[in-house]
């Protein structure tokens, strides 16, 4: 695993919502609240992009996805693949749309050799996610039909036992 040589910064932490920064940032930094990482990588990156970057925490991932799909965010910095996939899942998997907007992704702690394209990995994750969603939906519908049927039959049995 390669790690970028990022040093600590004294600048205070800020997030997209709290910072009141640029409304349509060009650069996004994904953050999961890890304080060690925040105090180093995040502030270094914010300093590097000087007002063009915003930090997005998990509850802001949907807003980030909207910015990417609108074509505003062009570069996404993320600590690792796991956080990136978590973000994608939170946003109902928009990989194809993100890719279609020409988004470039930089993993700070990347399990791949430098220059590796991360999109195929993300597309695989997408497929897995969609398959899991479809299976869960199918299970839910079948179970829902069976249990609803049982409930209706139980209701019918009890209601028709009512005295006239």
């Amino acid at each position, binding site marked *: 695993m390669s790690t970028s040589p990022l040093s600590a910064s004294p600048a205070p932490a800020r997030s997209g919502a709290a910072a009141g920064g640029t409304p349509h940032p060009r650069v996004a930094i994904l953050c999961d609240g890890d304080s060690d990482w925040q105090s180093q990588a995040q502030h270094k990156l914010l300093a590097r992009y000087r007002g063009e970057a915003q930090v997005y925490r998990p509850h802001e991932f949907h807003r980030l996805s909207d910015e990417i799909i609108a074509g505003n965010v062009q570069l996404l910095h993320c600590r690792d693949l796991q956080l990136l996939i978590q973000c994608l899942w939170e946003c109902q998997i928009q990989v194809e749309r993100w890719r279609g907007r020409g988004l470039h992704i930089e993993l700070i702690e990347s399990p791949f050799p430098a220059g590796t394209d991360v999109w195929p990995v993300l597309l695989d994750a997408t497929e897995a996610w969609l398959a899991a969603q479809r299976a869960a939906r199918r299970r839910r519908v079948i179970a829902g039909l069976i249990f609803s049927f049982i409930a209706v039959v139980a209701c019918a049995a009890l*209601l028709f036992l009512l005295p*006239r």
Partner: protein
Amino acid sequence: MIAIALLLTAFAFLWAVENVPRLLTRRPARWLLHAETDSPRARKLHRALTQFVLLAMILLYPLLRGDSVRGYYSDLLGRGAPRQALLGAALSIFCLSLLYLAWLFSDNIEFAPRHASSRWLRKLAAAPLTALLGAAVEELLFRGILLADLLRSLPPAPAIVIGSVVFALAHYARRVKRYWTFPGHLMLGVLLCTAYVRTDALWLGFGLHAGGITLLSGTRPFIRYRGPAWLVGASIFPYAGLAGLVLLALLTGVVWTRLS
């Protein structure tokens, strides 16, 4: 047919109040009530006016028929026994609870507070009163006035059909989030009209209605729907999904065959 004329006049009046100012300022009229997205104050005013018009209709109808308000409603509420309301409430709460239980077991809904405790406590406390008021106004209007009026000139079956269609349509006279819930309102209308026709009284329908609203608004702050809307409905409309519609049909059958 005085009741239908009264309902149409009331809709026309509310529509005019909202749309004449729009037309005068060269803005396009809107077909549905409360379609305005102007100020919260204007929306509140329109809602208050709607409540006033509903009350006015309830008071005006006996007078248009040549009765006294007191005489008409004494006769209406004197029929049947108030304990039928308790039976109705028990029936609707029991059936809806069984459905929720089925969906909870099948992972189609989950129970989790959707608001801060102070907010859901407020909503929970308001649920019974909201249910009593809502059910009372709707039962007086749609069964006590509309259906009773239809039954004076039509046999029960067409009166139930027309009464149910008007009841369902009235829920969509204003702008709403969901329109696919219409069959649910229609079937609910059939159940409530059947309850009135079979018991010749408002009490059973009032109980069914109030019990249902109490459970729906009482559980709303805690329920998240995960299953498909065609099966389990959504929000306060679990009766608009397939399972809910079947259950309403079943309740109608029970009321028709056993509660006359």
